């Protein structure tokens, strides 16, 4: 994100900023069930509803499964729909996540990343949203409170784009981003409504003059056709994310793309990492750069669809890359970022060595020295061409 303009400033937590963005978007329906660390989003938002600041119909469901079900019904009815959750809440929505994407409903969900039980833990890691990475939802990961706030508006536009029509999950790190106060720049309500515009569903169920059926059975002659359409749509979302991020930048002075590159262009080695931990890594980059080491960082912002071409272009001439996953997918062969990036680079004859570090599960601290340690290992790999351990837990 390149900031070129600063306006109305406010110190807000990630949760309050997301709730404030939702207030400015003023969706038709919100259905939710509270769960730590995302609770404050709906708590703040329900105050906006109670105070008449929004026109939203707030549905307080009895579980996340019901919350997502209500979101799906409302979206099929033709409403603009938003919700928020975390961890077990997202897990309980699982079955319905696939229905939202399969029915092509542009619901926007703020997911405050938190570890999954057991053992029970309320702190940040990415096991919740990474588990849902193949559910057909677009996934955008936010580094900061400002970015989480800005991503919400863009998510509405991306989801509702005629080229896409898919649900979008905006992820921010539990506690680290959701509960930390950051001084951010807010948009005016009018700017928001101009940017997000109105929503007109293509086939609203409440249009009784043009009756439609949602959720009909499809047999082997047609199911694959709908999945193919869905697959092409999520592929198209990549360009829409770029277009919307550019337009946002032109209007409000903060431009967003598929990824953020930090001192990467001339780097010999790089760390690839999502969300707030990128901030810590940048400090390590600066420290090592001051000592003359050519290190850099790549922070994917869009994880689904995975912008494999652009990421490969950014990494192909680096000598050694470490993918830092705040999740273990228990595949026995590394975690999601590692799997995607290693596979992406396979098509190049000359490609970087790629290693995987699993870090920070359940909110375990990831410190500058941890990032420095990874960079030092990478510099050694770059020099010798030898990888000692391909996949390893750090911050243990």
């Amino acid at each position, binding site marked *: 994100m390149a900031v070129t303009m600063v306006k109305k400033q406010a110190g807000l937590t990630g949760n309050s900023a997301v709730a404030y963005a939702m207030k400015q978007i003023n969706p038709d329906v919100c259905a939710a069930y509270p769960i730590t660390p995302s609770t404050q989003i709906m708590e703040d938002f329900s105050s906006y509803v109670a105070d008449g600041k929004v026109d939203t119909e707030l549905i307080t469901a009895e579980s996340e499964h019901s919350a997502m079900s209500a979101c799906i019904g409302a979206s099929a009815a033709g409403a603009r729909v938003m919700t928020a959750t975390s961890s077990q809440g997202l897990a309980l929505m699982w079955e319905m996540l696939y229905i939202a994407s*399969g029915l092509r409903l542009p619901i926007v969900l703020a997911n405050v990343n938190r570890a999954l039980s057991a053992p029970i833990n309320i702190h940040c890691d990415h096991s919740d949203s990474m588990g849902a990475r193949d559910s057909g939802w677009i996934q955008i990961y936010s580094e900061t409170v400002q970015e989480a706030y800005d991503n919400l508006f863009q998510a509405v536009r991306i989801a509702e784009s005629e080229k896409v*029509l898919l649900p979008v999950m905006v992820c921010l790190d539990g506690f680290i981003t959701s509960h930390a106060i950051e001084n951010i720049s807010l948009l005016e309500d009018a700017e928001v409504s101009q940017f997000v515009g109105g929503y007109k569903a293509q086939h609203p169920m409440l249009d009784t003059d*043009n009756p439609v059926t949602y959720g009909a059975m499809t047999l082997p002659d047609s199911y694959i*056709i709908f999945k193919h359409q869905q697959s092409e749509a999520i592929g198209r979302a990549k360009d829409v994310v770029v277009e919307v991020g550019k337009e946002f930048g032109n209007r409000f002075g903060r431009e967003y793309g598929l990824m953020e590159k930090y001192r990467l262009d001339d780097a010999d080695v790089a760390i690839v990492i999502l969300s707030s931990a990128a901030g810590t890594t940048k400090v390590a980059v600066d420290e090592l750069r001051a000592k003359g080491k050519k290190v850099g960082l790549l922070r994917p912002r869009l994880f689904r669809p995975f912008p494999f071409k652009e990421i490969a272009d950014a990494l192909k001439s680096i000598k050694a890359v470490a993918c830092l996953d705040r999740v273990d997918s228990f595949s026995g062969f590394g975690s999601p970022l590692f799997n995607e990036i290693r596979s992406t680079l396979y098509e190049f004859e000359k490609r970087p060595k790629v290693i995987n570090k699993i870090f920070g599960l359940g909110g375990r601290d990831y410190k500058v020295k941890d990032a420095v340690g990874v960079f030092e290992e990478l510099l050694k790999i770059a020099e010798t061409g030898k990888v000692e351990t391909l996949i390893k837990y750090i911050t243990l």
Partner: protein
Amino acid sequence: MNMGKMKDLPIGGVITEGGTAHEYVTGGWRKLRPVLDKDKCTDCLICWVMCPDSAIIVEDGKMVGFDLEHCKGCGICAEECPDKVKAIKMEEETG
């Protein structure tokens, strides 16, 4: 709905018109077939009310027969036809 051009199917599997259930013939797996004895029938239309499949055909307020493309052969109409009348009999499908 025309399923001819698969590629042009509305996204999300949405069916974009109403009343399409009528076109979908579901009576194929019926084992028993309702047969009406019109001489006995009093046109009370209890069968029309009770049929779970809207498969009783009524014209000008009179029971005239069954929509066998949708009748599942459940026998509810025969059961519900008043005891004094019993104008519907269920018979084995032979075809």
